[in-house]
Each structure stands twice: as C-alpha cells, then as structure tokens.
C-alpha cells in the first residue's frame, strides 16, 4: 500500500482463527523475540473459540495523545499511527485510562506504554494473517469511507459478548 495516505487495519473478529501468528510476527518485529504479552496486537480469548485481536483503532481525536501529561505520544502523518517516545514516557497509564478500548498497556518488563505503530506502513500482523488466508486483519486505505474509527476502540469484554451472541447464540451470551 505504497500510494500514500493514511492506512488502517481492518479487523474481522469472527475470522480470527486464534492462531496468534500476528502476535508472533509483531513481537519478533518489535522485540526480536516471541513475546505474547509484549505484542502490539494481542488476541484475547475470554470465551474459548471467541478470539479477539485487540489493537489500536487510531481514533480521529486520539484521546490517548491528548491525555499524555508529558507529550510522549504523537501521531504519524504518514500512517496515522500513535507513536510512543519511550524515553519521554513515564508509564503513568493515563493513555490507558483515556482509551475507550483499553488498548494501550505498559510494556511487561519496561516502563513505557506500548501501542501499535502500524510498522511504519507495512504491518507484520496483517502479512502473517493474510499469508494463512485467515484475513481477520487486513490493511485498508483510510479514505473512501467516512467513519469514526473510535467506534472500533472497544474493550475485549464488549467485543467478546457481541461475538458470543453472534456465533454461539443469545442464550450463551447471557451466561458469559
């Protein structure tokens, strides 16, 4: 997707196989290791079979960036991603509180916030997902569909409940 403009990772939860190859690809790229809890995309499975790839939705108003008291968060003009300045970040967790989906988290062994940076335009998670034909994560251009991406910034519990109702039926959703 080299024709410029903002990009977005389209997420189709019900196609997620739960293979978590996105986590492997992401953590290898960013950490040089296989590290599930340090991956910028994390697949939650609060109910077996209901897998939720959870990652930044790049809200139009970036509440996380707004909330940062030390100016450690900024946005990329090229991709629209939220960028974290590790050195400035004080791991206060204000960005987590500000995120409607509770997507950011503090690095498991370090003191800075972790947020998807869209790999500078070529997200590894999307490649891994597409390679296996699952296509739960797909790279799309951000233009051509006027939509508030913030609506995709949902907590794993909320997404899980809705998916259970859709895949397993309303009755099961009540017991979750």
């Amino acid at each position, binding site marked *: 997707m080299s024709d410029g403009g903002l990009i977005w990772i389209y997420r189709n939860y*019900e*196609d997620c*196989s*739960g*293979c*978590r*190859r996105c986590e*492997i690809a992401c*953590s*290898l790229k960013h*950490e*040089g*290791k*296989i*590290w*599930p*809890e*340090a991956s910028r995309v*994390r*697949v*939650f*499975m*609060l*109910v*077996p*079979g209901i897998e939720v790839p*959870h990652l930044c939705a790049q809200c139009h108003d970036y509440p996380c960036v707004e909330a940062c008291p030390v100016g450690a968060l900024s946005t990329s003009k090229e991709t629209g991603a939220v960028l974290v300045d590790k050195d400035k970040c004080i*791991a*206060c*967790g204000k960005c*987590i*509180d500000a995120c409607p989906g*509770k997507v*950011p*988290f*503090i690095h*498991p*062994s370090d003191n800075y*916030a972790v947020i998807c940076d869209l790999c500078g335009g070529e997200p590894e998670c999307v490649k891994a997902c597409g*390679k*296996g*034909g*699952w296509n739960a994560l797909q790279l799309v251009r951000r233009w051509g569909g006027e939509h508030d991406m913030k609506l995709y910034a949902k*907590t*794993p*519990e909320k997404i899980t409940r809705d998916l259970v109702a859709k*895949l*397993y*039926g309303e*009755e*099961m959703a009540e*017991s*979750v």
Partner: protein
Amino acid sequence: MRGYAGKFLEVDLSSGNIKEIKIGEDILRQYIGGRGLAVKILWDRLGRRWEDVDPLGPENMLLLLTGPLTGFMPGGRICVSGKSPQSNGIVGSTVGGEFSIELKCAGYDGLIFTGTSEKPVYLSIKDSDIDLKDAGHLWGKNARETVLTLTREWWKDYGSLHAGRGLLKEPAMLYIGPAGEKLCRVAAVTHKWAHAAGYGGYGAVMGSKWLKAIMVKGTGPLPEVHDMEKTVEIADKIVEAALRMDLFRRWGTASAGYTTGAESSSEPVMNWQEEWHDEESFGVNEFERFWVKRFWGDYGCPITCLKIAVIKSGPLKGAVTDNPDYENQAYLGTNLGIFKPEGNIYLTALADDLGFCGIQVGNLLGFAAELYQRGILTREDLGGIDLKWGDAGAFAALMKLIVERKGIGDMLAEGTYRAALKISEIKGVDALQYAVVSKGIGIGAHGIRSEKDYPHYVSYACSVQGGDHTSVAYVPIDHGGSELAAMLYDSGVFCMFTFFSPETQRLLWSFLESVTGWKITPEEWYNATARRILHIQRAALLLGGPDLRWNPKIHDDVPKRWYEPLGKGPFSGKAVDRDRMRESISEYYRAAGWDENGIPTSEELRRLGLDDVDERLEHIRQSLK
C-alpha cells in the same frame, strides 16, 4: 541451556509446599522434554516400586511438561503424563493450546505434582506469583462453567487495568470436568472447550489429587534460543510447508468421518462390528453447515485444522464443540450407529462438557451397546435405558450414568477393559471379546483389517501407549511413521500435524539445533535417545500393577474382534491373519531390541546405560521362560 525456561515447578499437594527445581542439561539433552522427560522423571522417582503405585493414589505423580521446541515450532502443545490409570504404564498425552506457551513465558518448563490435597484446589500461576487456591465452588462443575467462572475470577483480579499497567490477556487453563472428579478412567485433562489430553486417563489422576484446574499467565518472552535468526528462518519454511496442506486446512480431519468408512474401510461402526459405511449424510459438507468458525487453531499454528460447530436450533440447541474432529466423529458417531452431524455434535459437546475423552468414552459406549444388542446387558442393567444404535439421547443418558457412577455407570467408569473383566465375571460370559482395546486403552478410530489405513499389524499390538493412534509401532523403526518418531513430537513438544510434511521432517534436526544448540542426528535419535524412552515405557507397561499386568504372550495382540472378517464393503472377508500377526510381532521385537518374548534385552539396555531397567525386568524375563 537454550529453548528452555530453565526451571520446573514442583507442587506437593499433600503439604501445599511449592518449590522450583532444576534439571541438569545432561538429562535434558537425553530426554528432551514432554514425554521423554516424563518417562525419565517417573522412572527415577517411582520405578523401584512401580508395581505398587496406585495410579489413583497419592503416590502417583502428575506431570505437565513442555519441550524446547514448544512455542518455536508452529503448533505448540503440552504433554500430560504420570502412571496411567488405563494401562498402568506411562502414556505421554499431549494437548494443543496456549497453556504450554503461557507456562514457558511464566518461566517454567513444566509442572510436577505429587501427593494429594484434602480438598478441591486449583493452582494459579502468574509469573513467579504462585498460589494454591480453594476450588470448592468449582468442584462438580462442567467444563463450560468451570472455564467461565475461572476466567471471571481472573478478570476481576487482573482485567481491571492491573496496577495501572493495562489489560493482561486471560490465563490459559487445564482442568477436569466431573468425569475426572469421579475418577472415571476415561476422563481427560481438558483445555479450552474441546481440547483434551485423553489417552492415559489423566483426568482421573487430577481428580484423585483433588486438583480441579491449573491456570497460568506468563508475561515474559519465550526463552532465549541458540540462534534466533535461524530459528525464525526454519520456522517460516515449516509454516510454508504447512500452508500447502490446502484441503486438510479447510476440513481438518472432519472429512474422514465419511472417507475412512467409505474408502479405506477402517472406521469403527457399531463397536467395530463393521468398518465400512457410505453414509453421505456424514460427509464433511454436511458438517460444514454447522461451522461458525472455519479455521480454529492454537498458538502459532499455521494449519488451524479445528473448526467450531454449533447447533443453533432444534432439540439439541446449544451444543458447541470443534469440527468434531475425525476421532470424535467416529467414536461418538459411527461407532454408536450415528450417521448424522447433529447427534454426533451433541454427544461430542456433552463428552467435552463432562470431561470425558471422546475416544475412550465412545469406545466404552459402543462396547456397552453391543452387550445390549447381544442381550448380555439388559435394559434393567442399564437403568432403564434402551441403548439402541443411533439413539444419541440414549447414549447421552448412559454417559450421565457413568459420570455419576450410578448403577452400571459405576462399573463402566472403570473403562472398557476393566468393565469387560467385571461383566464377564458377573454374567458368566466372555465380554472381553467385544472390548476393542490394547493394554487397557481404547484403540483409536483407525482399523487394520482392510490394510488401507496407516496403522499396520503391530501398530497397536506393540505400542507402548496401547491403543493410542498417535503413537503406533512400525517397522522400520526409524521411519517417520514409527512410535520413535511420535516420541519426537511428544517430547519436542509440538503437534504431529505440522510434522506430516516430509520437508518438515527433514528440517526438524537443524531446527532442534537452532533452538537448543544441540546437534542431535536422526541416527542418534533412533538408535539411542528415543530407544531409552521406548524401553522405559515398555518396562513400566510390563511391570504394571497394582490391579492389572500385561503378559506380552497374551496382550501383545489386537482385539479378538479384528480376527473376525469384515462383513460389509469392498474389503468384506478381510481379517487379521494370526500367523502373520505373530511373525510381525517377532519382527518388531527384533527391530526394537527386545527378546523373543518382547522384553528389552540386557545387551540393549546396558548399551544405553539403562542398567536399572535391566535389573527390574529380570524377573519378568525369568517368568516368561
């Protein structure tokens, strides 16, 4: 040591004492992990008094072990082991999922449980934060409720933005259902909702220790490897090879419910009275109608051969399970005379929810139904159940009697082989002739009579894991389809399906080196490493006890049923030939380094440094002379 977290956790359930232990590199180099290491630990600690150790007593151990390749090799699994309450030997029983990954990320290569608790407990691990917790509120709960309750409790503690650091993913869980709690020897150790370590009956071992569940969350990375660049490079190639398995990925093993019957004629039909059917209603296309997820897999899996089936309407509404996969299609389908997806999905979901191994309980239900068909068991014996072939409701009712240990259920809960002995005694008939088992373990759903499927004459007769279809004996013994190869994926520990491609099998040795730094050649594996595992497993099986022992002259054999000719289908008339069976067994003994009675020879054992095994087997050698 590379590829390993470097420590194990040992939990004494009697005292509640929990400690970290280390295992030396020399031992790991020889026994790798998973099944191999389980065999070594069990032999060292219990070998001297093996015959006296009650698999369901406090002396037995429960081992949950990863291997160095777990997490790096696409398709991670964990190996569950201990003294098996089915075979009285050692079974390495693996289950897919994230448990092994979370465990390694928490800093542990495995868990070792000894002793027994006095009340229901579960073990909670979050990195080095380890706690034995009360499980009184979980005891008696089915799979679905156990998982949901434990997840809810976890989420309360860690889901609400723990310590301002954001959300952690849910922990992975291994647990038992009521079947394990009631010490049913056909109970599984379960993960998610349809993932089971079924062979061996370790659900009952967990139940005997009052251990309801183990949940683990690791926030660290997988351990350091010898050469990360090479590890990633080879893993990518293995992924590529796996991704080429197009239709296997699409259908998983669920296409076999039809084809194993119609084409290879090796599928259990009504307790193996037949192995052929051509019921198109059991085609994978019919199952696809129930799939709400078309690819379902575990950590790192490129194949994602599982699918999720849901019954959304009608009387069986609410059933959720996997494909079902072939083994469950066969054992909770055709083996019970069920040839439509609904009944099969329903029974599979029920077996999962109660904590049964679908294969073992399906074997048992088919056995009971044949006894009913022949009038050996009456409707009164069965508590009023009219156990007719094809009636999913009747089989469900019997499954519930078994899990409650009510009436005949109490006897059947001991598994097909032990139930057959008891029924023979009570009814004055030979019920063993209807038991399709090997060394107390219900045989996987791949028959040998047509000779069109992968198992052969010695596959189950000589396997150290009895009826386990994922660990079959084979000659030549250094073949990728032999039991010694199975020890590689069970000790690695990773999924056998990623091992299918010849390319992967070729790459595996350099992969093992890139992860561990050890140069293990196929020659070393097949001539030494795997042989040690094989012989110790064989020794444990032969020593057996305390309730049952195996005599190779009698029990190295296939079930009587398979000497009867197939009735229907293109291979009708084919049966196992007795002379050929004896010859094949002798050939296997020679290939394995066992004497003419199937005992590992002194020379072979001493060559491998297994002198103590040799000494323990001497009295068996003498008694067979």
